[in-house]
């Protein structure tokens, strides 16, 4: 099966043609068990499941939100990648989409939302403002959300094209598929208080 594809690491029931072709070529335990049992590593099957079922929390503060709506709508259709359902409670979400400029006034709220999410959780920095502050190099704006919370994928752009976001999402899926149990828990955001 194709590496990184939907069936990676999983021996799922095959079609009739495949069964006819593959019969007799199986070896070892697969020969004994046939098609009745799934064989994989637990890490891999959990990663595979997770990467196609992101429940995203849209933390939308600015104009990038328009691009996010186009992405979630039928034309670009985030549903194709298994992340269709935005959850508006952080406790039900595992992918924090930070979409737009984060001001210093907003920063404690972002960290609170991140800390409220249950693990495992990932953070997607959508657009250049969330990534680095963008051109808002001033008194009001956080210069990148990675000064506050850990970020998994950065997608720059003002706003990013939907294709860029989809590419970022696929990269995040690859990352999630490779994660192991020992990667979790990560704990609270590194910044919970001003030092």
């Amino acid at each position: 099966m194709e590496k990184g594809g939907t069936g990676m690491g999983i021996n799922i029931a095959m079609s009739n043609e495949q069964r006819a072709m593959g019969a007799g070529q199986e070896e070892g335990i697969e020969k004994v068990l046939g098609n009745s049992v799934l064989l994989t590593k637990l890490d891999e099957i959990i990663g595979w499941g997770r990467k196609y079922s992101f429940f995203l929390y849209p933390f939308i503060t600015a104009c990038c939100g328009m691009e996010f709506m186009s992405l979630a709508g039928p034309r670009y259709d985030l549903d194709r990648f298994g992340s269709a359902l935005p959850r508006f409670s952080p406790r039900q979400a595992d992918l924090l989409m930070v979409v737009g400029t984060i001001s210093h006034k907003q920063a404690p709220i972002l960290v609170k939302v991140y800390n409220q999410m249950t693990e495992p959780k990932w953070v997607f920095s959508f657009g250049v403002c969330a990534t680095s502050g963008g051109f808002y190099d001033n008194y009001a704006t956080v210069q990148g959300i990675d000064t506050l919370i850990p970020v998994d994928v950065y997608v720059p752009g003002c706003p990013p094209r939907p294709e860029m976001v989809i590419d970022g999402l696929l990269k995040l899926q690859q990352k999630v598929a490779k994660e192991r149990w020992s990667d979790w828990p990560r704990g609270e955001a590194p910044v919970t208080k001003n030092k």
Partner: protein
Amino acid sequence: MTAMESITLKKLKERFPDSIIDTHSFRGDDTAIVKKEDILKICKFLRDDNELLYNFMMDLTAVDYYGREPRFEVVYHLYSLKYNMRVRIKVPVPESDCTTDSIIPVWIGADWFEREAYDLYGIIFKGHPNLKRILLYEEFEGHPLRKDYPVRGRQPLIGPKN
């Protein structure tokens, strides 16, 4: 310019000869610079005079002319829906007495505009019922749109001072 002078500036000069510091009317945009002590009664007159009826306060903001005396200027943009006229009123405010009268008694819509000017420029509007920061957070020190506010003056609530 007297023959071309608009009714607004003409009436203002007639009614408040001692309050008007200067007027000009560049390409039809009327501007009157007035003393800050008289802003409230001038606003009331502009709103209530039957030939003016400036019933819409479109904008209120401030300017920092750093290095000039008086340093600040509060700018009011008014519009008369009835007569389709606009006028700009400017009030110089010195740094030593950084206050002016709130015009909420005339246009209640000035509330948040005055809070914004207070937040970003530190101009105190006397008589404002709730003069506190509107955009920034309470912990913020100083007024960031003043020209002497440091360019890198960041005051994060949380996280590093980047």
